[in-house]
């Protein structure tokens, strides 16, 4: 385990005792509990006077490290502790136990300096002033983050150009469409060139075109400026498109930390073969040697198989002996299924 020097109220340091470079984000054993009140079993009226206090552990020893320029997906079911982690990392919550060092600082001890270096995008909340043009909000961000005017102008031009938001800056935010507003939100979050960007469901509610454009933008931004990004989302396609690394949290614990393909291999080793066939000996469940399951319904044959045990070409041969196939398609399990399977297996 790394030895961390946290003496002296969140001082700067970039190396551990052995002189190795510290990761940009370092969390170890973070624990946070909340008090939740609940009504006692009986009585609406007694509930007004008596209540039970219950301690809920939101984070139970969360720890991970991230290096500069990484893009990681942070996923987990509702209530798993995603937002709580983000709040701890952004310095607005103080955990009860554990260490957290971001860019050499303990976030909640040096909040002002810390938050100057990070950016946040919340898909469900707006950081823009509702009744005035987005440009006014940008101008205010400039003052809040103390960005020099020249640098601000240049950055704003760059962002509005890439996001195609130049024409939106002078329109009151309330009159923008969701996609347009989202682009302005992203501009607002990146004006001060944050080193770390938190994205909380950035694509929620966006149409396909806006979604793809936003993903493309984030990818480029990461490549060009080396911005570290942590993405929390329920949209697995976001993760697939953007993140080389996935962290899965459940019941306040990190359950998986690694690459997306590994995750798929572990929780969804099966491939799915789909084929449409003309002749059908029988509807419903059928038997195919070596396959995990197979059925035939409405002219479509679906076979689940493990490519480690049964090679695809052999399966195709076996199937085509029995059926006359029109077309054939082999696919991975859908990412949502993988995640659902994983949540089930981990019992979270």
């Amino acid at each position, binding site marked *: 385990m790394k030895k961390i020097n946290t003496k002296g109220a969140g001082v700067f340091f970039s190396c551990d005792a052995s002189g190795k470079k510290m990761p940009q984000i370092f969390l170890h054993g973070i624990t946070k509990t909340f008090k939740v009140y609940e009504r006692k079993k009986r009585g609406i009226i007694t509930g007004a006077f008596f209540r039970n206090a219950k301690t809920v552990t939101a984070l139970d020893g969360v720890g991970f490290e991230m290096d500069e320029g990484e893009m990681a997906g942070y996923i987990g079911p509702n209530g798993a502790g995603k937002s709580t982690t983000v709040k701890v990392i952004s310095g607005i919550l103080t955990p009860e136990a554990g260490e957290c060092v971001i860019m050499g600082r303990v976030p909640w001890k040096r909040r002002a300096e810390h938050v100057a270096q990070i950016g946040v995008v919340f898909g469900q909340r707006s950081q823009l002033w509702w009744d*005035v043009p987005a440009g006014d909000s940008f101008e*205010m961000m400039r*003052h*809040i983050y103390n960005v020099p005017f020249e640098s601000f102008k240049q950055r704003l031009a760059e962002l509005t150009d890439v996001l195609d938001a130049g024409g939106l800056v002078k329109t009151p935010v309330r009159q923008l469409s969701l996609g347009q507003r989202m682009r302005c939100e992203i501009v607002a979050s990146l004006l001060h060139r944050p080193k770390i960007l938190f994205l909380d469901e950035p694509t929620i509610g966006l149409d396909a075109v806006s979604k793809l454009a936003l993903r493309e933008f984030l990818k480029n931004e990461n490549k060009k400026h080396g911005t570290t990004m942590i993405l929390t989302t329920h949209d697995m396609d976001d993760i697939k498109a953007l993140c080389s690394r996935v962290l899965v949290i459940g019941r306040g614990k990190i359950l998986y930390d690694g690459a997306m393909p590994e995750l798929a291999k572990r929780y969804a080793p099966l491939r799915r073969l789909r084929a449409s066939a003309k002749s059908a000996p029988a509807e419903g469940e059928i038997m195919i040697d070596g396959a995990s399951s197979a059925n035939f319904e409405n002219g479509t044959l679906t076979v689940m198989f493990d490519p480690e045990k049964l090679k695809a070409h052999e399966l195709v041969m076996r199937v085509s002996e029995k059926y006359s196939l029109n077309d054939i398609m082999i696919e991975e399990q859908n990412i949502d299924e993988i995640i659902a399977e994983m949540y089930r297996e981990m019992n979270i």
Partner: protein
Amino acid sequence: MTAGKNFRVGAAVFRIKTAEALQYNVAWLANSLVGTFWGLIEITVYTVFFTYANASYVQSAALTLAQTVSYVWLAQAFFVSNAMMGMDGEIVGKINSGDIGFELCRPMDLYTYWYAKIFGGRFAPLVWRGLPVLLVGMVLPASYRISGPASIGGLLLMIISMLAAMLLSVAFNMLLLSVRIGIAWGDGPVNMILLFAGVLSGGYLPLQLWPDFMQKFLLFQPFAGYMDIPLRFYVGSANMRDAWQILVQMGWTAIFILLGRAVMKSRLKSVVIQGG
């Protein structure tokens, strides 16, 4: 965080909030109708009192009827520093919903930010509600009409004192807001305090028409600075020699700011932002 940066952020918030609030012109114009109507009723009531009261009382009253009429119009026009302007709804909403956490994600001084925001919100009603009411007050028949200022000096002092009044009322609201942080209820008690402050500001009855034995207390309590002190300069019941009364306003402002900052600091330390 330097004071210079703090000031620039404050100025930027003030600017954007003022621009935003000025858009609600129709809402405020409608509001000015209420103010005008209310003013007319009050003047009618005061006229009745002054006309039918015992002559010796009227002689010894601190304000004449004409002064009282001017007072009523100005109190309506400067409704912005009325205690019942209440708290910034958006900020209260943020406290209640926990969105206050996201305000903390910014490298800025939250007190300055909110203060400037509330202060910025006070100029729109001054323009859209205040000016129309004043205009009506100037064109009505003589007995309902607002009189000119007692002196040019008095007018200047009133303007300075009015500005101090706005700073004071915002500082007091900030104190209430700071107390509200971390409490999920409290609109009721806050409204009671604001009503109390409203009465003590002279918004319902000019403080000088209250009993004599209370006058010292009334002048030095914090809420006189909301309305009564500025208007005294206009109607001429206070003159150049009474300019020190502005210091009473500023003293209370300083006290409320220091208290508000201290409370906010300790509140933010213990605040828990719960839920996703």
